[in-house]
């Protein structure tokens, strides 16, 4: 399969309370095997998916937040976080996991995957997507 498309995943919901965040991550990880260009966007309550120090024992749910740190190893390194959504919730980038990847074109230097975007950049990301998956 030689076609390469830009797959953009929009994550809008909190990590627990519904199945969408977990399912989105499942699709991203399986999709990685297809060697497509992948962008992850976190907006609205979706920004909570990346927060540090998640603790789920009390709600009986699987804590899958550590999986995000592995995304870099799957060549998923374009992570876009809506700065307005963070600000609305009293969060900053420091409250989120600092996701990184190793750049094979730069002697495997460790680089940040995290990008803060405003509403305008967000709409550009959506316009540029070939396949848009909303969760």
């Amino acid at each position: 399969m030689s076609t390469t498309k830009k797959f953009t995943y929009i994550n809008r919901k909190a990590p627990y309370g519904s199945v969408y965040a977990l399912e989105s991550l499942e699709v991203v990880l399986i999709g990685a095997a297809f060697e497509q260009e992948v962008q992850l966007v976190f907006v609205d309550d979706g920004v909570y998916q990346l927060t540090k120090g998640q603790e789920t024992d009390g709600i009986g749910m699987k804590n899958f937040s550590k999986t995000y740190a592995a995304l870099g190893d799957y060549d998923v390194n374009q992570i876009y976080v809506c700065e307005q959504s963070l600000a609305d919730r009293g969060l900053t980038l420091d409250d989120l996991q600092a996701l990184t990847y190793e750049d094979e074109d730069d002697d495997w230097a460790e680089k940040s995957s995290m990008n803060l975007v405003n509403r305008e950049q967000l709409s550009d990301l959506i316009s540029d997507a070939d396949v848009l998956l909303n969760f």
Partner: protein
Amino acid sequence: MKFAIQINEGPFTHQAADTAYQFTKAAIENGHDIFRVFFYHDGVNNGTMYGVPPVDDRNVQALWSDLAEKHDLDLVVCVAAAQRRGIMDEDEAKRHGKGAANIAPKFRISGLGQLIEAGIQADRLMVFGD
């Protein structure tokens, strides 16, 4: 145009599966191709043959099975979502020690890779349901 369809809601509670069906049918009638219909999340519940709605109501599953029969559609149910919700074919039912299969005619069970492939191969991926 070549469409792929993703359905995230089950039958009856929300209209998403009905709308997806109407869209798919209209697309075919207007000469478009349907690469695949992928059932995900609660959408896998569209694939049980054990639904018996009142006779004056539409039977969403039967509509899909008929449409697939007529136009040779590829109806794929996500395996992980299906296992969680008890949608099984013969193999799955046997493997998990369940009494009987319940997957409806023309539906098949497969993995999420089928969704990604549909996104790659189709000109447009249409998503129905939240």
